[in-house]
């Protein structure tokens, strides 16, 4: 058999048999993709509303102490989100941004921790130094997502009247870890 005949026979065979071979041929092909997702730490806090007004009722008659019942400002709502990434223990602090000229107690009432673990430390007397009002902890690092709380501010009776004046006072709320 000459090479020419062999070549012709080969081409015919291929053209006839290839579709049949391919149709009956099973295949499994694998590939891989490698990727990386980095979750950044998140720490956000928000207080709503950003301004509340408190009216102080004056004494009914001369010689009577002022603010026997005290006054209240609020309630505020505090929202915060703290992702688990970046630490295991954190806390919320509050402080007065400037001189208050009065005694102010801050408390988180009606605390509603939607998810996570948040421990309320109890009411505290506001000062210019940040004081912890709540902490988060646990065996896992994901804590305190969506904490919703009323933040009420009240004055104590018997405060020095001479130090009181109408004005705007700021309270700082911080979330730390």
């Amino acid at each position, binding site marked *: 058999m000459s090479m020419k005949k062999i070549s012709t026979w080969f081409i015919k065979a291929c053209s006839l048999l290839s579709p049949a071979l391919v149709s009956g041929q099973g295949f499994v092909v694998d590939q891989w993709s490698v990727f990386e*997702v980095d*979750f950044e730490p998140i720490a956000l806090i928000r207080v709503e509303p950003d301004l509340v007004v408190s009216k102080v009722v004056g004494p009914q008659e001369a010689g009577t102490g002022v603010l026997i019942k005290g006054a209240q400002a609020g309630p505020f709502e505090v*929202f915060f*989100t703290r992702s688990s990434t970046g630490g295991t223990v954190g806390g919320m602090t509050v402080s007065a941004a400037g001189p208050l000229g009065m005694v102010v107690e801050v408390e988180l009432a009606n605390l509603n921790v939607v998810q996570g673990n948040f421990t309320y430390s109890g009411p505290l007397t506001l000062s210019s130094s940040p004081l912890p009002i709540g902490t988060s902890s646990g065996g896992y690092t994901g804590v305190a997502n*969506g904490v919703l709380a009323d933040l009420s501010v009240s004055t104590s009776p018997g405060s020095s009247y001479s130090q009181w004046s109408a004005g705007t006072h700021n309270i700082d709320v911080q979330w730390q870890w």
Partner: protein
Amino acid sequence: MAVVRFALVALLWCGTTYGQSLIVQTSKPQQTVSAEDLSIPFYAGADYALTIDLKTTSTISVFGVPPEIEWCLFARRPNWAPNESQIKLTPDISTFHASPLGGIDKSLTPASLDAGIEMLPVLSGYGEVQSVLIDWSLTGASVLIDYGLQDKSIQWRLINRGCPP
């Protein structure tokens, strides 16, 4: 005898010239999830959005498959922890242009890959496909879970049969 041997080898050779190939090119494989991805971005009190769109995309190409042959592209993510979020793969069929050489099935729903060894269908078609984009997104993430840096892989598998219903 030599001629017969040559013919057999030649037949085997021409039967294997139709080698199937799957090419997966993944762009932007490094992504960061941040406060921008909360259900309301940068909003205290919010958790991650139900679906976080990643900028990662994969371009799929299939070659060496005759037009009459159906195939299914599967994917799985091995070596993932059970509490990790899901990866959702959504074929962007608008990026595909049909040709006489092949096509894709446009009725598939996106595949959400949980941790595990099970292969899930992502895309079905027939014949050759020059390119079709697959968009990546992340679902089921929670700020309560410390994911850290996730360095993971996805296995793609092309099989010569239609995808299961």
